[in-house]
């Protein structure tokens, strides 16, 4: 204590030390180890691996598993888009019509996600089951054939991913909509903007930071997910997460799995940069 008193400039570092050390040792350093491992050569007979700048692991990862990469992008992108379309009007409703019930309505949004992730996904197995009401209805209206099914299809996987990450979309949207000054909307209406016009020119642009945050918070975990594809899909719907998981834990092919992990991170990074450019966030967040 006395020592810290004499060297006041040390205080912030003392506060940071334990947490930052933890993150460095158990987050940054492991990524380094993963990078090292991704360049190891695996002996296919002895099943051991040793370091040898094996950049071909990356080339192999992309050529062998590009279908799973593309599928992950497709599923995660689609799920993010649906989550956005579903959540936006709901967040809008709570922010502008919620009144004194706002917190309670938010609770309704968050509450489902206190049921364990895996149990939630198993519940979708129940809902989409072959003899369930949803499949029955879709068969009756001939959207599905007489023996058509939802489980073990891409539709079920996308439905599961969409549902499982909904609060990550809805909450940032709500926060950005909540902050909008209602007087701006009144001003727009005073200036003879129609309701639609006021929404398109005032509300929507002001909520874009929330759209951006929500999209990223949904898309990133969705890209790496393997639970939905495992429980709701068939091997034909496997995503890159399934491949990494299997390579790592079932086949113990660590170099390939490590290379795949880095390609996944790169794919996410590229997707995020492209998306940020499209939305023009530099201008938005300043």
């Amino acid at each position, binding site marked *: 204590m006395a020592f810290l008193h004499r060297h006041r400039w040390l*205080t*912030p*570092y003392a506060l*940071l030390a*334990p*947490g*930052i050390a*933890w*993150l*460095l040792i*158990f*987050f940054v*350093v*492991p*990524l380094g*180890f*993963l990078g090292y*491992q991704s360049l190891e050569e695996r002996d296919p007979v002895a099943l051991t691996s040793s370091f040898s700048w094996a950049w071909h692991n990356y080339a192999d990862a992309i050529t062998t598993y590009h279908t799973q990469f593309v599928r992950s992008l497709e599923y995660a992108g689609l799920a993010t888009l649906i989550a956005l379309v*579903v*959540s936006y*009007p*709901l967040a809008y*409703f*709570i922010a502008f*019509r919620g009144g004194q019930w706002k*917190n*309670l309505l938010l*609770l*309704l949004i*968050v*509450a*489902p996600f*206190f*049921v*364990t*992730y*895996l*149990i*939630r996904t*198993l*519940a979708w197995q*129940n*809902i989409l*089951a072959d003899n369930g009401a949803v499949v029955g209805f879709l068969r009756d209206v001939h959207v599905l054939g007489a023996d058509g099914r939802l489980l073990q299809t891409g539709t079920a996987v996308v439905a599961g991913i969409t549902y499982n990450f909904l609060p990550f979309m809805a909450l940032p949207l709500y926060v950005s909509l909540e902050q909008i000054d209602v007087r701006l909307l009144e001003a727009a209406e005073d200036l003879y903007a129609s309701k639609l016009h006021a929404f398109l020119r005032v509300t929507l642009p002001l909520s874009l930071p929330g759209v951006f945050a929500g999209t990223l918070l949904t898309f*990133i*975990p969705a*890209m*790496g997910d*393997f*639970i939905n594809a495992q429980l709701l899909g068939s091997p034909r719907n496997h995503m890159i*997460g399934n491949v*990494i*998981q299997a390579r*790592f834990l079932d086949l113990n092919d*660590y170099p390939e799995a*490590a290379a795949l*992990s880095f390609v*996944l*991170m790169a794919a*996410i990074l590229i997707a995020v940069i492209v998306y940020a450019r499209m939305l023009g966030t530099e201008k938005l967040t300043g």
Partner: protein
Amino acid sequence: MTAAAERLVGRRTISPPARAWSFAKRHALTAYAILAFAYFLLPIAVVVLFSFNDPAGRFNYVWEGFTFRNWKNWDAVPGLTDAIKISLEIAVLSSILATIFGTLIALALVRYGFRGRGPTNLLIFLPMSTPEIVMGASLLTLFLTLSVATGFTTILIAHIMFCISFVVVTVKARLVGFDRHLEEAAMDLGANEWTTFQKVTLPLIMPAILAGALLSFALSIDDFVITYFNSGNTVTFPIFVWGAARVATPPQINVIGTVIFVVAVGLMLGNVLFQRRRARTGS
């Protein structure tokens, strides 16, 4: 629009279709919100409903009939109680440690100028934006390389790691909106730095610290992916469910899911009502 004006508008639109259209337009958003809430809550209803199911086979898939048996014999499945115990232990320990580490970082970030603030912020942000599978895989690589046996300790290490950032963000938000004059007043009244922190700062940021701890607890008890990579032979509740999903899903899983849900919602509901009451009596 006042009620009278609304009635006037209603009278002017004579034709029923037009009236129906205006009614639909006015209530479309509300109707949508009700549908959306139904969608959010449907799987939960299914989880609760199937906790009362009396399944015929090994899988709790199809509705067979109502029974209380699963609730009475909630601990009848071998391994389930142990898994819950381990999950709770890890959640308590990791949320305590992550909350301490995260709160200290938040204090340093908001209260002090120091070199390396940019990298620190980046280091806080990165774990929140890295896919879980990459974090899980890289931690396992670390443990494998150093030949550390995976198990309870490694799960705990991982959970503390991914919870810290969330605590920092939560506590930081509260500290930024904090009235520094209160601390200056305490100092003016002769309190030293430590007393001021203990008597003024800490009580004021306590709600955020508790929120961070609760968030960590929820993240820890629900985590599957990172845990799966670093668990060795240790079985947490989510890992138990995962294993069960492959061979047999006892309805007791739904019982536990329902209990976790009710406890969590009860806590949050209590918090919401408490704040509403405080807001009403406080103002």
